[in-house]
């Protein structure tokens, strides 16, 4: 029997993977541990290893195809073996994996029933595959089991129904009311899935005749893009953002950095960037303000203040954005932060960051200063409570002791999730940040 190679689960949040590149050809001999392809997950591009020896009989999917976890990617076997058994089993690959699981569950239930045997009568009940949990913008929709079933039978989206039961639970009568509503209203409330598949906008009549490919180029939405879209949309829609901006005097920070980098050069160590200074300053300030180093977790019904400070640093790469994490940044020296950040950024650009290097941040910074952006507001990186947007250092005339003198200034803007961080809390955090960045020696105290 030939051996199926399935899409493995490569990160906690991964649901499907895109086969980026095949590294082996049909007919190639492979051994356990060989990498036969690269797969892009929601987090990174990963190597796809095989666990058996054999000949690559069949590449089931093409480069660029997305396959859910458990979906068929390739078939291995002996050189003259026929892969059609395996192919038939998966029947067209993608999408079928869930059914297989359901079948497995059902056959397990059958087995239980067999064991329970005839005299026992009803025995174990048949286990039906659980439909995926519906979630609304505000987490789980509460509905009675009957309401769920009726809604499904009548093609009604639960999200479009208001619940009249306790805590907004959707009950039978709510679905019945939805069924009785005129069809037009129903459609509006709950567009059938087919509608969403249609063109998102109406083309102007005069260009309708032109060939489509002349009008625009298409590109598959990458996994990373999907992830960015999903996470940031979720953040912006669910976390009520507000913004606090301060303007920092950077003269001492500039001098401090100069001194540090002279030392670094002598010792052949990585140079410290302004961004590293900010990372360190944020980390030390977060230690003082645990309420900012927090998450609002609605489903768990709790606010979590983290005991460790992990600062995520947004890094722009070719077709997107990743956020490697400097763990325990409050306990690390600037040199170490600098080295880690550089290494992580390089890996990010090479698309070789491992999922665990991007997970677990408790706070994030985003720096567009190098592009000359003076100030901007960033979208919070969930489940963080805040993100700091760092602008460019500007030459500015400042008034000092009643005189206008040349000054170095940098604006930073803190985006706060108002569900967990209030204005005064954010302001106090920024005051500490000012304390450390305007006199970096304070960080050493």
């Amino acid at each position, binding site marked *: 029997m030939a051996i199926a190679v399935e899409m493995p689960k490569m990160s906690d949040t991964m649901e499907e993977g895109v086969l980026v590149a095949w590294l082996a050809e049909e007919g190639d001999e492979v051994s356990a541990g060989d990498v036969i392809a690269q797969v892009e997950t929601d987090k990174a591009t990963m190597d796809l290893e095989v666990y058996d020896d054999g000949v690559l009989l069949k590449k089931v999917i093409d480069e660029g195809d997305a396959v859910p976890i458990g979906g068929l990617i390739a078939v291995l076997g002996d050189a003259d073996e026929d892969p059609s058994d395996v192919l038939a089993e998966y029947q067209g690959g993608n999408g079928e994996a869930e059914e297989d699981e359901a079948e497995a569950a059902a056959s397990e239930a059958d087995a239980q029933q067999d*064991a*329970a*045997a*005839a*005299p*026992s*009568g*009803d025995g174990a009940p048949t286990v039906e595959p659980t439909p995926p949990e519906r979630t609304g913008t505000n987490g789980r929709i509460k509905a009675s089991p009957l309401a769920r079933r009726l809604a499904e039978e009548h093609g009604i989206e639960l999200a479009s129904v208001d619940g009249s039961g306790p805590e907004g639970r959707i009950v039978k009568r709510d679905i019945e009311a939805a069924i009785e509503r005129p069809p037009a209203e129903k459609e509006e409330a709950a567009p059938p899935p087919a509608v969403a598949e249609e063109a998102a906008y109406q083309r102007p009549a005069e260009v309708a005749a032109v060939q489509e490919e002349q009008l625009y180029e298409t590109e598959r939405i990458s996994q990373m893009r999907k992830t960015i879209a999903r996470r940031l949309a979720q953040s912006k829609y669910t976390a009520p953002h507000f913004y606090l901006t301060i303007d920092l005097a950077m003269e001492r920070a500039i001098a401090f950095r100069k001194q540090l980098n002279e030392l670094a050069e002598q010792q052949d160590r990585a140079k410290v960037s302004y961004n590293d200074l900010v990372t360190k300053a944020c980390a030390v300030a977060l230690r003082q303000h645990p309420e900012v180093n927090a998450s609002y977790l609605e489903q768990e019904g709790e606010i979590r203040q983290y005991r460790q400070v992990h600062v995520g640093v947004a890094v722009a790469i070719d077709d997107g954005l990743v956020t490697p994490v400097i763990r325990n940044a409050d306990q690390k020296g600037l040199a170490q932060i600098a080295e880690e950040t550089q290494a992580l950024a390089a890996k990010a650009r090479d698309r070789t960051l491992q999922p665990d290097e991007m997970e677990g941040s408790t706070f994030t910074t985003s720096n567009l200063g190098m592009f000359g952006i003076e100030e901007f507001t960033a979208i919070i990186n969930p489940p963080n409570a805040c993100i700091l947007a760092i602008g460019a250092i500007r030459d500015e005339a400042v008034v000092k002791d009643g005189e206008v003198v040349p000054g170095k200034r940098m604006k930073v803007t803190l985006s706060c999730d108002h569900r967990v961080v209030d204005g005064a809390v954010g302001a106090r955090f920024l005051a500490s940040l000012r304390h450390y960045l305007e006199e970096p020696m304070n960080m050493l105290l």
Partner: protein
Amino acid sequence: MANKTDKENEAEATAQANGTEAAGAEGDGQTLDMPTSDATELSFSFTSYEAGDYDHDELGLEDDQLLAMYRNMLLQRRFEERAAQMYGKQKIAGFLHLYIGQEAVSTGAANALAIGQDSVITAYRDHGIALALGMTANECMAELFGRIDGCSRGKGGSMHFFDAEKNFFGGHGIVGGHIPVGVGIAFAHKYKGDDGACLTFFGDGAVGQGAFHEAANLASLYDLPVVLIVENNQYAMGTAAHRAFADPDFYKQAIPYDMPSSVVNGMDVLACYKAFSEHLAMAHDNQPSLLEVRTYRYRGHSMSDPAKYRTKEELESKKNDDPIIRLKQYLIERDLSDNEALDAIDEEVKQEVLDSVDFADESDFPPLETIYDDVYVQDDYPFLA
């Protein structure tokens, strides 16, 4: 029993009132029937069946029957020795209580009763009586192995041998719990008038249970055809009888229940045969009785019991009383057999037991669906979850 409802008190009050009335009717001028101090001087007689006192001819046993008894005792011994080995080989698991040393009791009893007419119920040390009643080594070993051909279809194991055909109502696991059941079996014999009696075996430890006392009282109160047999092997698990009982002379337990009592040396199969015969005769006359058998268990309580509570010397001294050796000497002394012939019997028995191991090993495990068999009498009971 604790408090009662008003209605129950009312019931008791009525009963008591009747009793008082009866006492008053005797006209001795007293409202209460008080025993006088003279009358409290209790006398109690019991029979003692000693070892070596009996001759098989006088007991009406044929020579062949005696040899068969020898063979049967040996079968019990070899069966259990092999079972112990199989336990070590993990063919048998759970509890395995051995009867080694007590074979004269089971063989004596089984030869005294009418198999199929009289009944037997016992506790968990039940291999000996099962084999004595004629259950085969095959079905017994298969039961120990937990196989479908076992006497209880693999459902009972060591403690729960049963044979309905032989009126063997089983081995039971809860100390004392089966004694009322034995009394109930006797109740049915009497109710039906089928001339049966029930031998109810239990260990000395069971005398400490309320169930024994309730059952003894009921047996006597209703004049039931039952023999209550205390197999006093001196130890209730690891506790010597004198440490567990204010009075370890169990035959005296008949006194409060107003029934005849005897004590028999359980190492002598002829004494046992005699005692069981006489007690069964009483039972058939609806006279319940108590029979204390003094015996000795050579093995620990169960396979997991190292029996450290006994000295080596104690064990060795008792082995000289071994019921099988005793009968062997009797057979040779009386010229009923010789060493060669008896050795041949031993070889035959050993082979029978080895065959039973093969039989058990080859028997299938009970099919999984049989787990639902015999929960209820009705054929189908789909209501089990």
